[in-house]
């Protein structure tokens, strides 16, 4: 396994330790429950916003804790939802008179642990609101399965809700806002390589030099089909088509376009992909008013990307432009 790790079972803890060492004034850490939280939160005049999914998606979600974004995050092991207790303790720690908002990515495991924590927190008299995020168009939804996955679109739900929360929105307003954002955001991903969870020590899947996985999630689970490696522009075309036709996005829409790296793809390639996606937006009559290029929601060191489109209105544009400050920063 070619990774910078020590004892694999310490992987997640050591990352969190590094994170608080790098942000000693702003972040606090509760090792027992994997909780990273804002040193200045909770506050009774602001709804607290929390999230906890599997680890391995960094910067999501622990590195998104900060002013104007999450108030706390409580990750589980690599690719495993946190134990219920982490979610419950995190909810209690962030308890605010205005309530606590759970932003949950739509996975069976996440749904179950947050459900249980929700029940327990409400029994304690804590006001809890829930938004489920499921932006991944690669999954064919059906009434029987758990439905679409929550992937990179998660960023937009957090950003919008957190901006509104800073401006004093109520829990009910935030739930409505989160649901609305989720309803206009769509994503699909592609992988060139698998990823290697430290505890497994080997890649999750084998893939040949001339193959890619189309429609991947963010846990190294295989995608919707294996395809031949093509020129970057052709790959963007297929992904763009799947995403844009899903809402569907329409000529004249104002949008944000995100090219999200899966962890192992350099930013040079992400901009090369952005180029074609932006040209496709132009050709489809979509006006890109804000762009996002970088690693937002990853699968460890997987080489790959996802493309996200979100339809904007004036309110959403304002919320996305609101100031925020989190550990992942340049300066």
């Amino acid at each position, binding site marked *: 396994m070619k990774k910078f790790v020590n004892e694999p079972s310490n992987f997640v803890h050591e990352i969190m330790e590094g994170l608080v060492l790098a942000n000693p004034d702003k972040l606090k850490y509760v090792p027992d429950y994997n909780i990273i939280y804002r040193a200045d939160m909770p506050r009774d005049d602001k709804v607290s916003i929390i999230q906890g999914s599997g680890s391995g998606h960094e910067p999501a979600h622990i590195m998104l804790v900060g002013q104007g974004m999450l108030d706390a995050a409580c990750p589980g092991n690599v690719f495993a939802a946190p134990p219920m207790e982490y979610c419950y303790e995190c909810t209690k720690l962030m308890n605010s008179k205005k309530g606590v908002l759970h932003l949950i990515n739509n996975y069976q495991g996440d749904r179950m642990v947050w459900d249980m924590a929700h029940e327990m927190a409400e029994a304690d008299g804590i006001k809890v609101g829930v938004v489920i995020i499921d932006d991944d168009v690669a999954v064919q939804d059906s009434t029987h399965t758990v439905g679409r996955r929550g992937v990179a679109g998660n960023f937009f739900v957090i950003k919008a809700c957190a901006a509104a929360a800073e401006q004093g929105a109520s829990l009910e307003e935030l739930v409505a806002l989160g649901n609305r954002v989720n309803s206009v955001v769509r994503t699909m991903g592609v992988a060139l390589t698998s990823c290697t*969870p430290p505890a497994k020590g080997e890649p999750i899947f084998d893939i040949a030099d001339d193959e890619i996985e189309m429609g991947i999630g963010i846990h190294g689970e295989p995608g919707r089909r294996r395809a031949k490696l093509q020129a970057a522009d052709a790959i963007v075309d297929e992904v763009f088509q799947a995403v844009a036709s899903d809402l569907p996005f329409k000529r004249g829409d104002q949008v944000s376009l995100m090219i999200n790296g899966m962890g192992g793809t350099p930013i040079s390639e992400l901009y090369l992909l952005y180029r074609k996606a932006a040209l496709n937006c132009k050709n489809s009559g979509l006006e890109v008013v804000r762009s996002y290029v970088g690693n937002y929601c990853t699968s460890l060191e997987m080489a790959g990307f996802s493309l996200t489109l979100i339809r904007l209105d004036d309110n959403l544009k304002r919320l996305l432009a609101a100031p925020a400050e989190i550990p992942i920063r340049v300066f």
Partner: protein
Amino acid sequence: MQELSMDAVELAVKTVADVAIANEKYFSELDSAAGDADFGVSLATGFRAVISQWDAIDRSSIGLFLMKVGVIITSNVGGCSGPIWGTAFMRAGTMSKDKTSLMLTDLVTMLRAAIKGIMARGGAQLGDKTLLDALAPATDKLEEWSQKDTQDILGALQAATGIATETIESTRGWIAKRGRQAFTGERSIGTLDPGVVAVAIMLQAVTKALKDAYE
């Protein structure tokens, strides 16, 4: 053997834990075919926590013992496995709260409650290619034996193990509809369900351990 004592229940739980820990790599391996390769780690984490608190667990009744095991799992394991296995142990415990020994019929009642709990928690149906597809037919078999006069627990477990073991291969061709593997849709066809395999191997080991100890 017509009754399981507290000691026997302890031995069974300890055996389940040993299987989980010994198969950490293998179970994660199975989960990488169509899932996210964490099933082995999740189970092993949970049962390691159980073992590390082993001596302190309340043994005043079988039910309290099992409930505490369920709580430890729920507190320490995430993913699907924490809620599912935690719920299963807690529900089984609830049905045996004041018992210090178990008849075959008790066992059936407890497993039925566990199955119902898992279904409520995760929304799975039989046929969704989850561990329920091993657990349910095994429970059916125990129930069949519980209606005999002999009340032969070891015999019943032997039979249940056989049926659970068959489900490993018989569910291979199914399409997964719950858990991470469900996202791959048709591609889950042809892969083994890690939960089914785990249940079958655990049943095999528990049956053998009880036989070795009590026969």
